[in-house]
């Protein structure tokens, strides 16, 4: 394990970072949308297709055996990575959205009744907001919304006020994709559990920045996506406590999730297969396994320290720009910055910043409710990870100065 972070060498692992965009070296600051992949992950996928590709489970032949072993081994590694108690508490999904929808369907629609209440926060990504809103409308389950303060932090006291004996589920983000605020979820989970409230955490923006321990957190469900943590697209995780997963009905039907089928009726396979209908995306899961190894090899401490330095440097530099305003100013923040430049529209700013070779995201970041709260139509978001550099931040500052020159 490297004792500190050698960004120059790390960048060599990421082929996509060495491109030119409009004749300028690419600066990739759209990591919260999706991360680039290290060659180790790409090579793992190639190896899979060149040497192992096979439909897994239940096959008696060599390749099937080998691919199944690799796949189930990945499940064990992911279990250890998040410190889940049981291997079968790791359910493979398409991504965070799929994971949340699974819980909405197999837990929410099944066990929540009219009159029960669900609590979310105003800072949720649509993927952890709309499913509950739809459930709320369909089953007449009031949706309670935790507000944020001016720094963009979930207000714990307001959450406490929303809690009552009707509350059955709390679904909140670990880290806001728009404001960057890291929520002290342990505090929310403990409080919720005092009232026997089941807790789902959207970890899509958290799990790549800091070592996770679901047993310590004691959350009931935890969701995340592979593609946001240096793994291929199309793979995600739902962690759920065995006790809950056991009693939930399947989400989709067909393939591996079935035990016995007769024209009279069907019995379902055990965990985790019960929730994994259809041919699984083996490639994406093996890639995720490899990505986790890659991160562990760099070391989560090193990553966290370096990303904090990037965040501090960028914050300082950006705040020096006249008229620039940062949304989300919690002390406990992931390395992403949402900002506005005076009255300049994010679309205008984004267009020019792009022309300068820098990929940032503009718009509502699939989190309209919290932008409504701050009364802005959108922001510019620069999200940085361990392969970004201080020089890249300087280039962003330059680009912003250019934007100001053109639109002010």
């Amino acid at each position: 394990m490297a004792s500190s972070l050698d960004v120059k060498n790390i960048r060599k692992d990421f082929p996509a970072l060495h491109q030119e965009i409009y004749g300028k070296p690419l600066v990739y600051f759209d990591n919260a949308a999706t991360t680039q992949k290290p060659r180790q992950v790409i090579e793992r996928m190639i190896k899979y297709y060149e040497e192992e590709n096979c439909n897994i489970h239940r096959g008696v032949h060599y390749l099937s055996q080998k691919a199944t072993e690799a796949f189930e081994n990945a499940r064990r590694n992911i279990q250890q990575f998040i410190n889940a108690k049981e291997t079968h508490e790791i359910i493979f999904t398409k991504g965070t959205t799929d994971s949340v929808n699974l819980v909405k369907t197999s837990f929410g629609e099944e066990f929540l009744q009219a009159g029960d209440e669900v609590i979310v926060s105003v800072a949720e990504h649509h993927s952890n907001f709309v499913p509950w809103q739809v459930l709320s409308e369909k089953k007449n389950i009031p949706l309670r919304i935790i507000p944020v303060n001016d720094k963009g932090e979930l207000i714990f006291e307001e959450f406490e006020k929303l809690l009552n004996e009707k509350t059955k589920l709390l679904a909140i983000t670990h880290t806001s994709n728009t404001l960057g605020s890291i929520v002290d979820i342990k505090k929310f989970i403990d409080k919720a559990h005092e009232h026997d409230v089941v807790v789902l955490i959207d970890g899509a923006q958290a799990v790549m920045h800091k070592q996770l321990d679901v047993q310590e957190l004691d959350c009931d469900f935890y969701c995340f996506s592979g593609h946001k943590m240096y793994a291929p697209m199309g793979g995600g995780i739902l962690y759920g406590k065995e006790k809950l997963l056991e009693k939930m009905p399947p989400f989709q039907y067909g393939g591996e999730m079935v035990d016995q089928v007769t024209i009279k009726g069907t019995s379902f396979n055990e965990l985790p297969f019960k929730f994994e209908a259809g041919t699984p995306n083996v490639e994406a899961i093996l890639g995720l396994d490899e990505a986790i190894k890659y991160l562990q090899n760099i070391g989560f401490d090193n990553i966290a320290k370096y990303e904090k330095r990037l965040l501090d440097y960028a914050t300082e530099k950006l705040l020096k720009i006249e008229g620039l305003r940062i949304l989300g100013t919690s002390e406990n923040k992931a390395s992403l910055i949402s900002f506005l430049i005076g009255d300049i529209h994010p679309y205008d700013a984004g267009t020019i910043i792009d022309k300068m070779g820098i990929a940032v995201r503009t718009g509502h970041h699939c989190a309209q409710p919290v932008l409504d709260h701050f009364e802005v139509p959108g922001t510019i978001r620069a999200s940085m990870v361990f392969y970004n550099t201080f020089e890249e931040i300087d280039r962003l500052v330059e680009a912003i100065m250019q934007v100001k020159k053109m639109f002010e």
Partner: protein
Amino acid sequence: MSIQEKATQIEEEFSQFEDWMDKYNYLIELGKDLPLIDEKHKTKQNLISGCQSRVWLHAVYEDDKIQFTADSDAVITKGIAALLVRVFSDESPDSIINADTEFIDKIGLKEHLSPTRSNGLMSMIKQMKLYALAFKTKA
């Protein structure tokens, strides 16, 4: 001037720019000349809501010609809206229905008309053609 002539004129205007910055600066200027939609027509009904920027579009029909006015909250969107209004305004429904927006590609602004970019411009063009169709049927 026909739609085609106006489009060619715009292509010529843009051909003088050597770098993207001059082009965008000119676009920003053009935005300022956009015949602005009357505040009273800036209604919810006339709003085209993209997820990146918003566009308002209004149309009047007189003497077999349609006159468009528009606005946007983003300056670049406004500049492109100005180009579209300039080309499509003061034309008959038929010529609008049959017109294309090739000139936008040619002057290197194609990306702003991507259907998934969601800045309101693609919907604006669709809306302009719908107006033309509606006025034609009425006429």
